C-alpha cells in the first residue's frame, strides 16, 4: 500500500516534467500508474476470501501513536479499485480533453496528489492518517475546482467547496480525538474492540454529530449540498472523477467504515435515514429543472449520495448490500455520463441540453456509451443498475409500513433521476440535429474510451453478476456489516413488489421527461426561494458576518496603542501568577524591622527614592541618571550577597548604558506631559497592584524549599572543567552554547546598530545637500 502511494505521489511530482517533454502523449505513460495499482489490487481480492483485513504498518510519529497503518478489507479494496480504475480512464481522458492547455502538467500534478490522498484515505487504519488524507482530498479538490483560476466563479466555487469540506474536516478531527481519548488508541481495529464502551459513553451523541458533520459536508448531504453543483466549475475530468465517482463518496465511505463502530443505535439509524432521504429528494427535485449537462448530473449525484446514506442508515445486511452495489453502479454510470458530457461539450462547445440534438449521427460511439450509462442510471434490465435498484427497494420494503413510505419517496426521486438520465444521456443524441457553436465530430479515442469501458462494465456486471457479487461486493458488505452474509445478485426475482416499483419508476420517469419544460419553468419561477436556502446563509456568513467579526476583533485586539498591548500582556501574566500563588500561604511574622541592618534599609531606600523621582521627572537626562542610581545600587546588592561576577558585569554594563542613553537622549527635546491626570492615576493604581503581586511572588517563592540538585551538580563537577569559579565554569563549560548564543545576539545587535546609524548618516548628508537648494532646517520642525 505504501509503495503504491509512493508511486502515485511520485507521479504527481514528475508529471509537470513529463508533460513538458512529451506534451499530450504524457497521459499514456501517466495512465500506467493507476493502471498498475488497479491490477495490483485485483490480485489482492483473492487474498481476502477468509474475510479478515490485511494490515500493514509503517511507524510515523511513534510518541503520539500516529502510524501509517493500512487496512485492506473489502470496503477499502472496492474503493481502491474504483479510484485506480476510473483514475486510469480519467488520466487518459484529461490528456485529450485538456490537450494543448498550458497548465496540463500542473493539472496532472494535482490530480495525482488527489489520487494518492484518496487511496490513502480509504486504506487508512490509523485515524490521524485518515484525517490527513481526508483534508488532502479537500485541498486538492480546491485546487482542481479553481484550476481555471482566472474565472471569478471558479475561484468562488473552489473556496466554497474548500470551506464547507474543511469545516467538516475539523469536526471529524475532534471526533477522532474524542475516540482516541475514550480508547487510548488511534488504530481503528483497537477502537472497534471497545465498541460497547463507546456507545454507552455520554459523549457518544457528540461523537455521532461530529462524524456526521464531517461525512455530510464531504458527501454534499442537505443542508451542505450546495457546494457540489458549484464545484462543476472544475474541468470535466475533475467532475467525473472527484465530484461523482470518488471524493464525494468519501463521506459515504466514512459512514460505512464507522457503521460497525457507531451504528446500531436509533440516533445513528434515524439521522442517516432522514438526512439521506432529504438529500435524495432535494437533489432529484433540484436536478430536473436544470439545463446545463453538468449541473443536471451534479444534482443527481447529490440524490445518489443521499440514497447511499439512507441505505447505510437502514443498517440491515440487505441495505448494506444495496448501498455497496449502488455505490459501484453509480460510480460506473456517473463517471461515464460526466465524461460523455465533457466529450459533447468538447465537440459542440455547448452544455445546454436545449441546444443539443441528433448527435448520434456525428458521435456514434459516444452515443452508445452514453445510452448504456443512461440505462444503468434509469435501472433498466439487464444493466447492473437494475439489480441495484431492485435491491434498494427490497431493503426498504423489509421495514413494513415505514418501508413503503421510504419506497414511495424513493420512487419519486428515482423517477426524477430517470428523467434526468433521459435528458442527459439519450435526448441529446436523438431527434433532429440542432445548430451548435461548433460542428460536432466523433470525439477522439481517449474521450470515448473511458465512458464506453465504464458503460460496458455496467452492462457486463448486469448480465453476469457473479463477476462482482462474490469478489467485490461481498467482502465490502462484510466489512460494513461485520459478519459474513450471503450475497447473491440476479436479474430475475420473479414477480415481486420490487419489480412493480421498478416498472412504476420507469413509467413515472418517462412522464417527468415529457414534462421537462414545465419543470424548467417551475425552476425559474421558484428561483427567488434560493434566498432562503443554505447557500445564501453561506454567502451571508462569508460576505457579511465574517468581515464584520474580523474588523470588530481587529479594532479590539489590534488597536495600535502600545500601552494597551503591554497592559493586556502583563495583566494576563499577573493574573496567572496570582492564581498560582494563592495556594502558598505566608507565615504570620514574615516582616520585622529589627531583622535588617541599617545599610540594607539604606540600599532599598535609594532604589525607592530614585525610582519614584524617575517617574515624576520630565527631564530625560535626570531620569537616566536616576535609573543609573538604581542600577549601581543593584550592583552593590550583588556584591554584598555573594555574586561578585554579577556586580562587576552590572557595574560595567550600567556605565555603558548610561553613556549610550545620554548620547542618544541628549539631542531630544524636553518631554512634554502627554497623558491626562485620570490616565496617570489609573496607570499608577495598576502599577501598584502589579508591584504588589510581584512582591507576593518573591515572598512566597522564599517559602518553597530549594531544590539543591542542580547547584550541587555544578559545584561537584566544576573541578572536571578545571575551574574554581563555579559561575564562570557554567558560562564557559556547562552552558557554553548559551554563551555562544549570547555573543551572537550581541554581534547581531551591533550589526543592527551600525546599519541603522549608517543609513542615517547617508540620508542626512544627502538631505543637507538638498537643503542648500531648498528651505533649510526642515528637520528642526
Amino acid at each position: 500500500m505504501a509503495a503504491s502511494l509512493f508511486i502515485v505521489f511520485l507521479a504527481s511530482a514528475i508529471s509537470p516534467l513529463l508533460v513538458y517533454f512529451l506534451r499530450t502523449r504524457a497521459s499514456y505513460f501517466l495512465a500506467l500508474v493507476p493502471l498498475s495499482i488497479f491490477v495490483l489490487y485485483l490480485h489482492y481480492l483473492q487474498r481476502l476470501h477468509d474475510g479478515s483485513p490485511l494490515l500493514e504498518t509503517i511507524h510515523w510519529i511513534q510518541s503520539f501513536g500516529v502510524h501509517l497503518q493500512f487496512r485492506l478489507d473489502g470496503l477499502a479494496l472496492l474503493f481502491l479499485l474504483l479510484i485506480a480504475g476510473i483514475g486510469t480512464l480519467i488520466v487518459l481522458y484529461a490528456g485529450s480533453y485538456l490537450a494543448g492547455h498550458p497548465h496540463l502538467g500542473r493539472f496532472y500534478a494535482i490530480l495525482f496528489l488527489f489520487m494518492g490522498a484518496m487511496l490513502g484515505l480509504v486504506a487508512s487504519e490509523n485515524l490521524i492518517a485518515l484525517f490527513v488524507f481526508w483534508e488532502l482530498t479537500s485541498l486538492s479538490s480546491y485546487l482542481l475546482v479553481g484550476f481555471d483560476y482566472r474565472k471569478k466563479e471558479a475561484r468562488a466555487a473552489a473556496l466554497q467547496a474548500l470551506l464547507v469540506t474543511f469545516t467538516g474536516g475539523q469536526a471529524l478531527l475532534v471526533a477522532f480525538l474524542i475516540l482516541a481519548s475514550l480508547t487510548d488508541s488511534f488504530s481503528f481495529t483497537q477502537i472497534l474492540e471497545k465498541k460497547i464502551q463507546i456507545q454507552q459513553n455520554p459523549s457518544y451523541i457528540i461523537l455521532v454529530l461530529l462524524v456526521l458533520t464531517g461525512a455530510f459536508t464531504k458527501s454534499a448531504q442537505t443542508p451542505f449540498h450546495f457546494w457540489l453543483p458549484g464545484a462543476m466549475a472544475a474541468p470535466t475530468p475533475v467532475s467525473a472523477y472527484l465530484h461523482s465517482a470518488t471524493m464525494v463518496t468519501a463521506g459515504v465511505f466514512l459512514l460505512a467504515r464507522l457503521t460497525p463502530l457507531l451504528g446500531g443505535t436509533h440516533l445513528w439509524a434515524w439521522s442517516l435515514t432522514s438526512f439521506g432521504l432529504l438529500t435524495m429528494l432535494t437533489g432529484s427535485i433540484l436536478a430536473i429543472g436544470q439545463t446545463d449537462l453538468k449541473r443536471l448530473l451534479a444534482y443527481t449525484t447529490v440524490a445518489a449520495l443521499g440514497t447511499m446514506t439512507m441505505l447505510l442508515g437502514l443498517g440491515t445486511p440487505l441495505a448494506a448490500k444495496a448501498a455497496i452495489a449502488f455505490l459501484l453502479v453509480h460510480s460506473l454510470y456517473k463517471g461515464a455520463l460526466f465524461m460523455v458530457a465533457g466529450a459533447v461539450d468538447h465537440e459542440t462547445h455547448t452544455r445546454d441540453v436545449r441546444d443539443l440534438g441528433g448527435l448520434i449521427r456525428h458521435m456514434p460511439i459516444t452515443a452508445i456509451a452514453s445510452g448504456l450509462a443512461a440505462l444503468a442510471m434509469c435501472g433498466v434490465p439487464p444493466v447492473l443498475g437494475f439489480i441495484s435498484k431492485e435491491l434498494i427497494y427490497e431493503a426498504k420494503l423489509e421495514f413494513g409500513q415505514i418501508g413503503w413510505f421510504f419506497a414511495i419517496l424513493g420512487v419519486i426521486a428515482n423517477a426524477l433521476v430517470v428523467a434526468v438520465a433521459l435528458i442527459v444521456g439519450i435526448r441529446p443524441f436523438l431527434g433532429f440535429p440542432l445548430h451548435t457553436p461548433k460542428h460536432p465530430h466523433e470525439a477522439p479515442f481517449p474521450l470515448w474510451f473511458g465512458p464506453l469501458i465504464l458503460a460496458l462494465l455496467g452492462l457486463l456486471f448486469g448480465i453476469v453478476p457473479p463477476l462482482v457479487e462474490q469478489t467485490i461486493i461481498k467482502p465490502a458488505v462484510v466489512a460494513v456489516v461485520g459478519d459474513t452474509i450471503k450475497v447473491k445478485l440476479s436479474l430475475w426475482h420473479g414477480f415481486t413488489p420490487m419489480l412493480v416499483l421498478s416498472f412504476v419508476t420507469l413509467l413515472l420517469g418517462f412522464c417527468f421527461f415529457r414534462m421537462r419544460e414545465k419543470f424548467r419553468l417551475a425552476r425559474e419561477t421558484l428561483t427567488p426561494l434560493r434566498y432562503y436556502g443554505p447557500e445564501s446563509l453561506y454567502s451571508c456568513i462569508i460576505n457579511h458576518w465574517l468581515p464584520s467579526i474580523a474588523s470588530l476583533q481587529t479594532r479590539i485586539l489590534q488597536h495600535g496603542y502600545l500601552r494597551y498591548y503591554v497592559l493586556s500582556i502583563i495583566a494576563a501574566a499577573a493574573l496567572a501568577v496570582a492564581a498560582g500563588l494563592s495556594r502558598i500561604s505566608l507565615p504570620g511574622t514574615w516582616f520585622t524591622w529589627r531583622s535588617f541592618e541599617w545599610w540594607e534599609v539604606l540600599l532599598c531606600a535609594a532604589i525607592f527614592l530614585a525610582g519614584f523621582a524617575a517617574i515624576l521627572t520630565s527631564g530625560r537626562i535626570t531620569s537616566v541618571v536616576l535609573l543609573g542610581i538604581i542600577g549601581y545600587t543593584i550592583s552593590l546588592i550583588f556584591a554584598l550577597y555573594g555574586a561578585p561576577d554579577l556586580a562587576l558585569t552590572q557595574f560595567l554594563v550600567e556605565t555603558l548604558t548610561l553613556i549610550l542613553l545620554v548620547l542618544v537622549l541628549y539631542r531630544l527635546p524636553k518631554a512634554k506631559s502627554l497623558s491626562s491626570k485620570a490616565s496617570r492615576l489609573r496607570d499608577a493604581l495598576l502599577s501598584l497592584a502589579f508591584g504588589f503581586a510581584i512582591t507576593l511572588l518573591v515572598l512566597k517563592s522564599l517559602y518553597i524549599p530549594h531544590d539543591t540538585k542542580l547547584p550541587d551538580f555544578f559545584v561537584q563537577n566544576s573541578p572536571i572543567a578545571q575551574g574554581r569559579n563555579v559561575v564562570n565554569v557554567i558560562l564557559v563549560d556547562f552552558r557554553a552554547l548559551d554563551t555562544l548564543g549570547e555573543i551572537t545576539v550581541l554581534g547581531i545587535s551591533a550589526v543592527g546598530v551600525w546599519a541603522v546609524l549608517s543609513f542615517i548618516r547617508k540620508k542626512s548628508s544627502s538631505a543637507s545637500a538638498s537643503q542648500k537648494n531648498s528651505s533649510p532646517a526642515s528637520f528642526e520642525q
Partner: protein
Amino acid sequence: MENLLAITIGAIYAFSFYLLLRRSLVKVILGVLLFGQGVNLLIFTAAGLTPDRGAFLKEDGSLQPPYADPLPQALILTAIVIGFGVLAFTLAMMHRLHRETGTDDLDELRSDEFDDPDKPAP
C-alpha cells in the same frame, strides 16, 4: 533582607510598569530597562541570599554548604549582557525614528487604519 528586597522588587516592577504605560517612547524604553533590572534582582533574590558567600571552590576543589546558587547567577549574567545588546539596538532605532518623524509620542506614530474618527484615544 529577602523580605525587604521583595518589597523593593515589587516597587521596581511598579515603576517600570508605570513607565511602560506612558505615551513617550523614551519613557517606554527606560521602562524596559528598569523592567530588566527588576527581573534580574527577582531571580537573584528568589534563589536565596547568601551574605558573603560566593560560589568559589577551595584549592582542593571542595566547597562546603551553604554556598550561593551559581545557576541563577549565570542566568543573570547572560541576561545583563543581552539586555545591553537589546537596549543598544533599541536606542539606535529610536534615534532613527526621531530623525525621521521628529516625535516620540507613540499615539502620533500610530497608524489610523482602523480608527473610529468619533472616538478620541482613551
